[in-house]
């Protein structure tokens, strides 16, 4: 069983370490993202992660900051908020990206078109670490 954070979900370091494995092993998710080829930024607390996606697979994940690295869009939130978001049965307000943005717990910026055109894909990538808490996957 994977170690859990005090918030209930996997610790951020564990979630990020195994993100590519969990996403790339999900054939339906990769298929859904087969037209996606871009870099986006996931900011977890003070740490930005640059995530490179090609044909729906996470092929690069670089811990920042990295000087002058560009990205299409960014999704940002405090570490504790993401760890609460990743619990298998999150509490109201921590259960969805837009529940978090409406309450100011997360924010989105940049060119939103590729995010909105593939919204289900990216919401499932954000939620993928829930599987680590559920079944100790890669734990």
């Amino acid at each position, binding site marked *: 069983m994977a170690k859990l954070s005090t918030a209930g979900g996997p610790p951020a370091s564990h979630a990020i370490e195994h993100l590519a494995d969990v996403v790339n092993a999900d054939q339906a998710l990769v298929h859904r993202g087969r037209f996606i080829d871009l870099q986006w930024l996931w900011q977890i607390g003070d740490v930005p992660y640059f995530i490179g996606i090609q044909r729906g697979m996470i092929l690069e994940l670089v811990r920042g900051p990295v000087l002058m690295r560009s990205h299409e869009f960014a999704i940002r939130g405090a570490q504790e908020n993401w760890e609460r978001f990743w619990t298998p*049965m999150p509490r109201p307000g921590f*259960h969805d990206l837009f529940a978090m943005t409406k309450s100011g717990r997360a924010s989105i910026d940049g060119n939103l078109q590729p995010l*909105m*055109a593939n919204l289900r894909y990216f919401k499932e990538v954000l939620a993928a670490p829930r599987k680590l808490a559920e079944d100790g996957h890669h734990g």
Partner: protein
Amino acid sequence: MAELEPIVGRYMNLEIGGRSCRIYFEEAGSGIPLLCLHTAGADGRQFRHLMLDPAITDRYRVIAFDLPWHGKSLPWEGYEVEDYALTTDFYTAAIMGVANALELDRPVIMGCSMGGRIVLHLAHAHADDLRAVIGLEAADHQQPWYDTEWLNRPDVHGGEVCAAMISGLVAPQSPDRYRWETLWGYLSSGPGVFRGDLHFYRADSDFRDRVHLIDTTRCPVFLLTGEYDFSCTPADTLRTAKDIPGVEAEIMEDLGHFPMSENPEKFREYILPVLDRVARLK
């Protein structure tokens, strides 16, 4: 022979707000008329579980209709050059038009989300024509949480983005089968329809100035909101309830914005006691 459900669907032709409309409705049960209003961007299928529940249909004639542009109700002639935008006036005319066409005697009107918003208006404007109203995920006003322009533009698939925007309004406890059935309504909605409904919801239905005028001795009001609804939040509903003397409001655990379709079993725990109360009203 296949097992047939007791739900029966028919069409009516009705003039609403000067438009010729062909309206689809379905119903089951007999007794007190219970007219159900679907959420924005969806259709009356959301109420199918209520129509299959003998604890309800033994006492209630449950009816759900699709607004024009929704479900099996066609958009009106000339839609191809029009930007659909629902208004309070048209919505009211559609609901009361259907109730009158079916000769419903003082129906109970139950609406969800934008349907929950309009019943607050009806409780005031048509108090004596109604037995009671039930607002699911209802408030007199709520804060917007995204730009509706994303819902209908050529470089984003409308059905996919509508469903992905609202998917988090379904509670995490809701069974996958019903979660995805609920989302299918959004995945399959017509272009710009959800956005057009939100015109009513966001721009033409701020009822904060009038809910205090509702007289619950003439038209009782019941409000039920799911704890996972971050669109119409429990706080929005409870704030609205404060301004309506005599209202009954309850927050539903483990439910989101689509209680009747996302988790019918759980919703029964909350709606059956309300329908018991309503059945005892004069």
